[in-house]
């Protein structure tokens, strides 16, 4: 008898462990939605799901929050390989390329259009364009953020610096950053910096465009970087000059101790560059008087698109239900619910223009800046290798931006040659990744 009991006990344990975390209702459609979400954002998604459930009680949506983008992508790639991917997932447009390459996405645009659930003019165009590939809308955008200037109103006022104008220029930006950089204790080192920023291609790209340059030769079918021009190099050099020649950005040793976000929150930097997501974190800070302004302009105004979209896995067995959920989440109710979290700029124009987003009781006071910036938005190429390109060139840019004092002394008179040096480094690190065609022979120009 004992011999029988042991295997039975083991089987019971395995069954018990198998049951942990499972609660599928057998009679309803079960969808899984995976997204990168902090706890506040996760609550907003759960409210969205509850609201959807009241309209569609036959569809159960399980929300799977993931804490970081890298783990989000790891989990997605693993589950796609094993044939157990979530039905729906949210992803940033700079990271979705690898899923195009592996051809695992069901185009959402045709599904929505065929069901009469999609009116293109109701949404902002740049994110729709960002998630279009091969002439089809592959994933449905839910937000349209951009890079803007976060500025400390109290510090501007304290040091008598004019607030940023809607059409301020590189010169005015430079002057404000200079006026706000202060040595407060007389030790000949700045205690307050005019600006702090993470050097990466996504932060430098708007300055390249503002100077009249380009990042790649053809945004739709890039074959090489197009940074080897005076305009592009001028844009690349703008922030580095602010750091080296004007001294308004903290040096490496101080950045190692404190990042741009923390420095801005503490009041150690008067300006920083970030997307809408940063607003939500700042709302939680007591006593910080802040607002947003557009990026300064040079030859022209430009900012960079930040957007996330709902993608549908090709292997999903419930495509119609998933389509309906996407339509609800990007509809009036869904967009208003997500706007309340303060993390997104709604992609639906009517919600973006409503108090759900432009809430006068919530900072930033100039939330409209995010909407006014939309016509100037440009994007990086949405090719399968773009995420890898960013991964390779961002460390190169950081090293170039914060190179050692000895190197800086040698390059003090290099002028634009220093910018061309960066172009060389970028091309060496990732130039080869722009050439290969995507898997399956599908190109973005196909329609």
């Amino acid at each position, binding site marked *: 008898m004992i011999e029988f009991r042991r295997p039975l006990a083991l089987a019971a*344990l*395995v069954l018990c*462990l*198998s*049951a*942990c*975390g*499972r*609660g599928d209702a057998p009679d309803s459609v079960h969808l*899984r939605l995976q997204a*990168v*979400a*902090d*706890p*506040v*954002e*996760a609550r907003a998604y759960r409210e969205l799901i509850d609201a959807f459930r009241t309209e569609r009680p036959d569809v159960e949506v*399980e*929300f*799977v*929050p*993931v*804490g*970081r983008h890298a*783990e989000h992508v*790891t*989990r997605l790639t*693993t*589950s796609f*390989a*094993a*044939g*157990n991917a979530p039905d729906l997932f949210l992803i940033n447009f700079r990271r979705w390329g690898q899923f195009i390459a592996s051809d695992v996405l069901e185009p959402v645009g045709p599904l929505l259009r065929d069901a009469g659930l999609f009116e293109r003019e109701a949404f902002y165009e740049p994110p729709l364009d960002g998630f279009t590939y091969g002439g089809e809308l592959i994933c449905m955008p839910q937000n349209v953020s951009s890079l803007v200037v976060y500025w400390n109103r109290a510090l501007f006022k304290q040091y008598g610096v004019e607030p940023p104008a809607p059409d301020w220029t590189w010169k005015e930006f430079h002057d404000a950053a200079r006026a706000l950089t202060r040595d407060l204790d007389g030790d000949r080192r700045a205690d307050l910096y005019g600006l702090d920023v993470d050097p990466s291609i996504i932060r430098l790209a708007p300055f390249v465009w503002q100077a009249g340059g380009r990042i790649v030769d053809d945004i739709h079918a890039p074959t090489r970087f197009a940074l080897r021009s005076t305009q592009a190099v001028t844009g690349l050099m703008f922030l580095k000059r602010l750091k080296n020649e004007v001294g308004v950005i903290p040096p490496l040793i101080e950045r190692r*101790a*404190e*990042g741009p*976000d*923390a420095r801005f*929150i*503490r009041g150690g930097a008067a300006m920083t560059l970030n997307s809408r997501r*940063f607003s939500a*974190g*700042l709302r*939680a*800070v*007591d006593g910080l008087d802040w607002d947003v302004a557009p990026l300064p302009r040079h030859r022209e105004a430009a900012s960079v698109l930040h957007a996330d979209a709902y993608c549908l896995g090709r292997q999903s067995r419930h495509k119609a239900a998933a389509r309906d959920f996407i339509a609800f989440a990007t509809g009036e109710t869904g967009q208003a619910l997500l706007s309340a979290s303060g993390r997104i700029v709604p992609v639906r124009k009517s919600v973006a223009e409503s108090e759900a987003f432009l809430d006068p009781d919530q900072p930033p006071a100039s939330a409209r800046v995010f909407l006014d910036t939309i016509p100037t938005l440009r994007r990086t190429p949405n090719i399968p290798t773009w995420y890898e390109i960013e991964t390779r060139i961002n460390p190169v840019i950081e090293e170039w931006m914060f190179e050692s004092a000895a190197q800086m002394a040698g390059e003090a008179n290099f002028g634009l040659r220093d910018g061309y040096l960066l172009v060389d480094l970028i091309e060496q690190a990732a130039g080869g990744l722009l050439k290969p065609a995507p898997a399956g022979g599908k190109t973005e120009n196909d329609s």
Partner: protein
Amino acid sequence: MRVALSFIRGCGLALVGCVFVVPLALLFVASLHAPGSVPVPGDLWPASPGTRAYQAVFAHVPMAGAMLNSLVLVGLFVPTAIVAGSLGGLGIRLMSPAWQLACVTLLVGAASVPYAAIWLPRFMAFQALGFGGSWVPLWAPALMGGHPLLVLLFYLAARGIPMSQLEAARLESAGWLRIWWRVALPQMRPAVAAAALLATAWCWSSFTEPLLYLHSERSQTAPLMLHALELLGASNWSVLMAASMLLAAPVVLILLIVPFSLNRSVGG
């Protein structure tokens, strides 16, 4: 002279201990900052220390449930790993020298395989078996001793048991399970304590496997909740530090208790 040497040795050990205590102390101090503030570099002690960050952890994520899940998982994983690992170690000990060498080589080889090389086949295998979304994939490695190095540890401990003892017990008609329980295990107590310590630390802090296998928030473990808090950003670092402190505390407690019991069992 002996007293002086003992004193110097004690001071040396205390100094080494301090090196490991400092990061924990910094973590604790950072967790005392109020949410919505950031620590100023150089200013260690917050202006108004408090436990609001700890309260925020439980308000933001279901940390209590996740810690309970982690605790249950450790409670299932560690005893299974010790039973399987010690049986495996004894089994290898009873083999011929040539087979012992082969098994040790195999164990070292298995321990050297990068995790990234096996996570996809394992994930696919568990999905095929219908265990996706459950705790079975997290517990299953315990059935093979938890980790090849733990089996190796038990094998080394079993080598210290004289073969004559095992053979004498066999002559007394004891079965191998009885020999393992009554003869081998009592003599492997230090190895059991060390293996329990290592298995607890691995299982408690495991992140990748719960990330890959667990879907429902109700079944998620504490490290996943910690990572969820990371996205709150610089304005909530103290919340992240408080959650880190909550996760570190049980391991530190075990690290303090196990060496003590290890000393007693070796001494006893």
